[in-house]
């Protein structure tokens, strides 16, 4: 099909051809075409098959509003062909038709399916026999739908980023009202963002011979410094944030003021066969003509309820389309457009509308008729006309979703023949057609005024600008013509053939009547039952129609029917755009690459990626006992607490004394809440009079920093807190040969007398300045070396090399867990929970109630100290080889579950199973027997309260 001669505002560039693929066949279009316009130019009229009945559907709105041109592009379903720009090489495929759009086997449903597919049919039919339901379900799911989500998970070609944007004024809608508002607000000094879902700014100007004006206004807004997001769909209003989706970015825009200039959505008419390809909205036909230089048909019949149908008729005439007749439902249609039509010799029939579109696969004719006051065709007035294009315009409805989500109301206004937005909340302004204005001057003026109001409310402007706004308000009041008046179209639920109210979900007018008959007689109930307004068009094409049908069928007044709730998203959006960038934050220590090279089995430990073992956890345990092991403990939280009050501050946080800690010495500490519950543990090393180096658990690092900072904020002591977790790496070299290894790397005297257990010393190790803490988490003589992350791998390598001849091997988290369990060192969060206190956890020695002054948890711990806890944390041993699961129940005396196992492992050193468990106090003594119920097994274990390995701590002190 050839294009029309060059149009003044056309978007296509005829010099540049683009090749693409449709359903496997090559196709061509021009730069600037959409998929739909290129296919239309090549003669395609059927673009999709409908959801339920598989009826052929063609272009209707050409503006991304209706569901009729949904296709898949490069495998992604749900793309609107009429707005998606053509790209070289794109693979476009139809949805929901087998085998092809033109011959869809499932269209049989349209012919025979009616008795089986009433509204809510899935509750009514295909129910029996029940065992066949899975079969039915598969068939139904196969037959219905809007395409398939890709089943494979291909590498995502695009990624979505979130962007937070704070602005003074957000304008939604880039038509004349939005552009005027943006320019004005920005000129007054406000920081303005404008989002428009079209491919080009200008809104309806673009297809109504206003391209020049649109470009001038866009330039004006750009010059004023407005940030333009095009194309950017405003998806919804969420507590003051408007989400705007722009290809690979989801903007979350928080503005102090909002101007909503989203315009209107043209409505179809309801009549038999109103979904046939060839039935087109007046805006759709005009877009094809003016943007893509296409002739939408050869013989057109036009049925309208307002002026826009007449204007479309004139444009079609001018494009060389034969206009057979124009039916205007208004009995008193007059004005410029009507006169021009008369002068061109086009018959204009007043008080007449379309009652049927003829044709099976495309429009071949239309039946026009005069209708009575209730919308029924007057007998004998019917006239059948041959045509291949039926242009309809059933008035408009405001695209007010954002305003409504923000709290505005919409009510039916009989004088406008459509919904009117009312009670717009503070901070939002409607401008242009969405606010019920019409006429170019009024639309622009209302936009400029809304922009001024928004800027003023945001604190910009001066006396002069306010005066100007007041003048404009007066002028707008005088000017304000009612938006192009529209006659109330009849709701033909009784016509021959299917009269579609909702194209997305294939809901006919009859279905809505049926739902009312079945008792779903309010608009919200009918919506849920028939799913009208719930399809991809989000009610754009069907909300007003469903209100009219409801009113007509129930005899209610239109104003009394109400409207369904507006919910986000306003535009269809891929889930991937909402999910954002697939970010799983992972923390890796500075030594991480080495763990990989050494064959470490890297697993998650909180946010950290840590090696669980290096292939043989048992051998790693044995190495620590018999030679030496090296573990990366960089994940420990590390806090520097400095200042004259540092000692006093720690005394108030920990239940033991820290202010009397000697310089160069280390003490273990447990942190409690004021309720006396354990929240974390770690070591404290005094570096000098005013400095303490505090370590926390790996997972508690952030929370404990916040905990320290919180009390510091409250107490306001002379202390500074520095989190050095990310700045320092740490390794623990432990085992009988640890000392020999360390001695090779440092000039420090490492003898047991000079560097004893719980000493902390600063020294150079392999030339790196380090803080060495002699502690014994794993139960052997060990040195925890803390050093700058920059030397992470270097020092690790140096220690491994020095230890090579001493049998050193790296060990992971799992062997460390076995080693610490042998020493009965608890893991906070594993062996304790939010109810555990130090007394019940067997650490009464850590609580110094005799220390002077207050500390966090003191009062609760005083209460606990004089009380026997119900449960105690104790060790247990099992000699029959069974390893109870962590979490297994410990049975009480009445054979009910009472406690639980928190840790259990096989000890390769001891040769039997050891563990920690919360047990009833009466069996918490050494040698008591406890019964563990584990996945149906009953195990008997022996309680012990002393460490399983080296109970006197001789090895770690040696």
């Amino acid at each position, binding site marked *: 099909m050839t294009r029309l001669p060059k149009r003044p505002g056309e978007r296509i560039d005829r010099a540049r051809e683009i090749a693409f693929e449709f359903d496997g066949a090559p196709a061509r279009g021009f730069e600037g075409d959409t998929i739909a316009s290129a296919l239309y130019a090549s003669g395609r009229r059927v673009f999709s098959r409908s959801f339920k009945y598989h009826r052929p559907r063609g272009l209707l709105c050409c503006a991304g509003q209706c569901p009729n041109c949904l296709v898949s592009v490069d495998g992604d379903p749900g793309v609107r062909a009429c707005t998606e720009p053509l790209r070289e090489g794109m693979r476009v495929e139809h949805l929901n038709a087998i085998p092809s759009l033109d011959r869809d086997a499932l269209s049989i449903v349209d012919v025979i399916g009616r008795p089986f597919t009433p509204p809510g049919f899935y509750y009514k039919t295909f129910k029996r026999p029940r065992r066949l339901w899975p079969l039915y379900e598969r068939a139904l799911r196969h037959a219905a739908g809007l395409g398939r989500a890709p089943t494979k998970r291909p590498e995502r070609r695009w990624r979505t980023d979130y962007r937070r944007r704070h602005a003074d004024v957000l304008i939604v809608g880039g038509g004349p009202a939005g552009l005027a508002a943006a320019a004005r607000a920005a000129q007054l000094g406000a920081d303005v963002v404008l989002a428009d879902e079209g491919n080009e700014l200008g809104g309806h100007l673009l297809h109504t011979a206003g391209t020049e004006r649109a470009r001038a206004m866009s330039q004006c807004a750009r010059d004023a410094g407005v940030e333009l997001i095009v194309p950017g769909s405003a998806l919804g209003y969420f507590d003051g944030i408007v989400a705007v989706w722009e290809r690979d970015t989801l903007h979350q825009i*928080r503005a102090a003021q909002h101007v909503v200039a989203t315009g209107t959505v043209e409505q179809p008419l309801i009549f038999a066969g109103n979904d046939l390809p060839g039935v087109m909205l007046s805006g759709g036909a005009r877009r094809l003509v003016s943007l893509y230089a296409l002739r939408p048909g050869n013989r057109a019949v036009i049925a309208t309820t307002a002026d826009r149908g007449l204007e479309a008729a004139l444009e079609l005439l001018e494009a060389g389309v034969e206009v057979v007749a124009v039916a205007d439902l208004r009995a008193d249609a007059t004005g410029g457009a009507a006169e021009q039509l008369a002068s061109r010799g086009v018959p204009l029939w007043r008080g007449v509308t379309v009652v049927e579109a003829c044709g099976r696969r495309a429009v071949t004719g239309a039946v026009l008729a005069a209708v009575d006051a209730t919308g029924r065709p007057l007998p004998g007035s019917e006239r059948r006309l041959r045509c291949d294009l039926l242009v309809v315009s059933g008035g408009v409805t405001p695209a007010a979703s954002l305003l409504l989500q923000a709290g505005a109301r919409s009510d039916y206004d009989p004088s406008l023949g459509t919904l009117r937005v009312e009670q717009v909340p503070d901070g939002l302004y409607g401008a242009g057609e969405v606010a019920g204005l019409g006429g170019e001057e009024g639309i622009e003026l209302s936009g400029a005024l809304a922009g001024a109001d928004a800027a003023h409310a945001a604190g910009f402007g001066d006396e002069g600008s306010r005066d100007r706004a007041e003048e404009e308000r007066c002028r707008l009041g005088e000017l304000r013509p009612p938006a192009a008046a529209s006659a109330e179209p009849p709701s033909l639920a009784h016509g021959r053939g299917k009269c579609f109210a909702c194209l997305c979900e294939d809901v006919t007018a009859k279905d809505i009547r049926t739902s009312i008959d079945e008792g779903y007689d309010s608009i919200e109930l009918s919506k849920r039952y028939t799913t009208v307004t719930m399809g991809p068009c989000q009610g754009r094409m069907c909300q007003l129609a469903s209100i009219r049908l409801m009113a007509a069928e129930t005899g209610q007044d239109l104003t009394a029917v109400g409207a369904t709730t507006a919910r986000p998203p306003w535009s269809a959006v891929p889930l991937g755009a909402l999910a954002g960038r697939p970010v799983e934050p992972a923390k890796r220590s500075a030594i991480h690459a080495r763990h990989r090279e050494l064959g470490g089995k890297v697993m998650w430990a909180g946010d950290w990626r840590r090696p669980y073992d290096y292939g043989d956890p048992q051998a790693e345990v044995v190495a620590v006992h018999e030679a030496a092991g090296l573990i990366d403990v960089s994940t420990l939280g590390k806090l520097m607490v400095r200042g004259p009050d540092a000692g006093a501050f720690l005394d108030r946080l920990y239940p033991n004394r820290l202010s009397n800690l000697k310089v160069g010495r280390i003490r273990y500490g447990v942190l409690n809440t004021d309720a006396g519950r354990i929240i974390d543990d770690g070591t404290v090393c005094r570096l000098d009079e005013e400095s303490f180096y505090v370590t926390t658990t790996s997972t508690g690092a952030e929370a404990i920093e916040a905990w320290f900072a919180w009390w510091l904020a409250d107490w306001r002591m002379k202390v500074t807190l520095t989190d050095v977790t990310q700045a320092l790496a740490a390794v623990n070299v432990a085992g009988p040969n640890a000392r020999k290894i360390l001695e090779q790397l440092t000039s420090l005297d490492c003898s047991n007398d000079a560097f004893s257990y719980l000493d902390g010393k600063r020294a150079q190790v392999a030339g790196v300045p380090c803080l060495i803490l002699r502690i014994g988490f794993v139960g052997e003589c060990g040195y925890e070396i803390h050093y700058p992350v920059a030397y992470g791998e270097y020092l690790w390598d140096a220690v491994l090399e020095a230890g090579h001849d001493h049998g050193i091997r790296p060990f992971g988290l799992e062997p460390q867990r076995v080693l610490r369990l042998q020493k009965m060192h608890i893991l906070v969060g594993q062996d304790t929970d939010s109810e555990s206190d130090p007394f019940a956890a067997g650490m009464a020695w850590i609580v110094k109630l005799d220390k002077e002054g207050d500390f966090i948890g003191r009062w609760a711990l005083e209460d606990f100290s004089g009380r026997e806890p119900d449960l105690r944390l104790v060790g247990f041993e099992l000699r029959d080889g069974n390893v109870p699961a962590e979490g297994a129940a410990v049975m009480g005396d009445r054979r009910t579950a009472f406690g639980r196992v928190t840790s259990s492992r096989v000890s390769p050193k001891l040769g039997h199973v050891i563990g920690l468990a919360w047990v009833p106090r009466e069996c918490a003594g050494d040698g008591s027997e406890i019964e563990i119920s584990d996945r149906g097994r009953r195990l008997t274990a022996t309680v012990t309260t002393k460490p399983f390995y080296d109970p006197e701590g001789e090895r770690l002190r040696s």
Partner: protein
Amino acid sequence: MSFVVLCPNCGAREVTDFEFGGELVTRSKERPSKRELSAYNYFRRNVAGVQHEWWYHRAGCRAWFVAERDTRTNVILSTRLPEADASAGPTVNARPPGGTPGVGSGTAA
């Protein structure tokens, strides 16, 4: 839920930058009775209205500060660092960017 919190150090930021620290409760100077201790540990007033509460700017300056928030509308009326004397009034008046207090903050009541 979404609103803006005004950090006394950093300025207006989305609430997701912050950690909520709960109602401001006073820790007793003297040893409380068991009932008082239990109330201090476990009971909160949970008012429907304006309350003073702790906030922590985790994703920012990591400062703890005190905010005055209307729990019905999520409007933050004022924020101050704890160093500032509460009786001297708010150190910072909460004001979303460029707007009047409350606009764009929280849900409409």
